[in-house]
């Protein structure tokens, strides 16, 4: 059964730039779905429309039976999501543990042991207690990503969104984060939607991949079938990504 449905979603900006041109997509419950595309193809706008941060011009986005248009009237729509932002978006004025605690406090207002829960989540993503009381600017990018992940899973969402999860990380840390994301999604049994331009990340994390090009989904399928899928753009994207990988190793 579909968990997230994009129904002919259009989004344009003042000046006439149309970023999403009637996007339709269905993500099944429990699925790990990847949105793959070039830089500037509208991936981040796609995500912000899903979260209701940007209003769509026409069409509809539905999560279970809730429409994105009901987001402002009911908190129920937003409670289904949690997001790992590209730049982590940890609050500068709070320590690492306070960032996680703050997320829990907002989601579960009556809970008394927020701090204990926050510590538990931080340990679960592999952060040591010595960094709990440091500020985001005092820890490395990889640790920040883990802390942001802890904040995302702490609110126990039904859907986890990852925006370019390995961006800005070295290959080793990126690999570790990828494993962490895959294990977390598997252990929690949640639906996940990942935005990336990295084919390796897509292949590693995905059950299914959708390719976004020039404001529309041009192909959906398994990552393993991308190479010879019959879509010119997708095949070109696949070969271009692979070629870069080969060039690096030779």
């Amino acid at each position, binding site marked *: 059964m579909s968990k997230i449905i994009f129904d002919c979603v259009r989004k344009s900006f003042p000046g006439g730039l149309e970023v999403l041109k009637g996007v339709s997509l269905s993500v099944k419950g429990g699925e790990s779905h990847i949105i793959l595309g070039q830089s500037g193809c509208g991936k981040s706008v796609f995500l*912000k429309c899903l*979260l209701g*941060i940007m209003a769509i011009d026409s069409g509809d986005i539905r999560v279970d039976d809730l429409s994105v248009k009901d987001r402002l009237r009911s*908190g129920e729509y*937003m*409670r289904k*999501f*949690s*997001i790992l*932002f*590209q*730049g982590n*978006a*940890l*609050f*500068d*004025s709070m320590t690492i543990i306070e960032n996680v605690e*703050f*997320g829990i406090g*907002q*989601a579960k207002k009556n809970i008394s042991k927020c701090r204990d829960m926050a510590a538990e989540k931080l340990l679960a993503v592999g952060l040591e207690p010595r960094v709990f009381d440091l500020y985001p600017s005092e820890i490395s990018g990889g640790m920040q990503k883990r802390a942001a992940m802890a904040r995302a899973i702490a*609110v126990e969402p039904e859907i986890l969104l990852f925006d370019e999860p390995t961006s800005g990380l070295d290959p080793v840390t990126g690999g570790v984060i990828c494993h962490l994301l895959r294990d977390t999604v598997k252990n929690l049994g949640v639906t996940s939607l990942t935005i990336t331009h990295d084919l390796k990340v897509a292949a590693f994390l995905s059950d299914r991949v959708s390719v976004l090009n020039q404001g529309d989904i041009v192909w959906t399928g398994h990552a393993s079938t991308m190479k010879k899928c019959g879509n010119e753009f997708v095949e070109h994207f696949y070969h271009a990504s692979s070629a870069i990988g080969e060039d690096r190793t030779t």
Partner: protein
Amino acid sequence: MFKPMATLGSYALASLQEIGMISIFAVRGIKSCFLPPFFWREIFRQLMALGFYSLPIVGLTAIFAGMVLALQTYVGFTRFNAEGAVASVVVISITRELGPVFAGLMVAGRTSSSIAAEIGSMRVSEQIDALITLQVDPYKFLVAPRIIAGVLMVPFLVLIADIIGVMGGFLVSTTLLDFSVGSYIAQTVKNMEMIDVISGLVKAAFFGLSVACFGCYHGFHCDLGARGVGNATTSAVVSSCIGILVLNYLLTALFFGI
């Protein structure tokens, strides 16, 4: 072809639109101050940032303003043999005008810019989006604490500025201008009216509101990138200073029935 009237018209319309947007933003921000949830820790942080940490610069400005005012008044009034009125002029000028305006402008320069830079950086680094996804109203978390801090702390700073400014005038008058300590204090107390102090404090509350609203507005609406944050900071300082000067005139006219 260059059309001066059309260009002027479009600027006027853009300015009116901006004023409308700022007004809507301010009303929403003020409304957030009265509705739960209240983020007490953030409110306390802003009280400290806006109030306590502005004390040195406001105090320094006030003492020099009082000292210069005493000197200038003495020099000017000597021409009319009215130098005895220095203490009266200092206390009235400081409490009615110089204390509130100088403190307001100093807070605008120091705090409005930091508010715009902080919120602008949060916009750029998606922290405001993160608040929304955590179901936290950014107006309640970011705007309301700064408005509360502005409205409460700028009057407090002005009260301190009034005291220090009058002290500055007293120091110059009694050490350089040969006024006797007793008569200067007596004249100051005699001419200091409660309405002057209160009008200054009420003005200060509005100045605090102006500083917080302009800082938050420009931070919230800043363009992406370092340049966007820089522009937001400049706009916040300029508009909150203009806001203070306009409000000062309007409130003075209102208080003293001119």
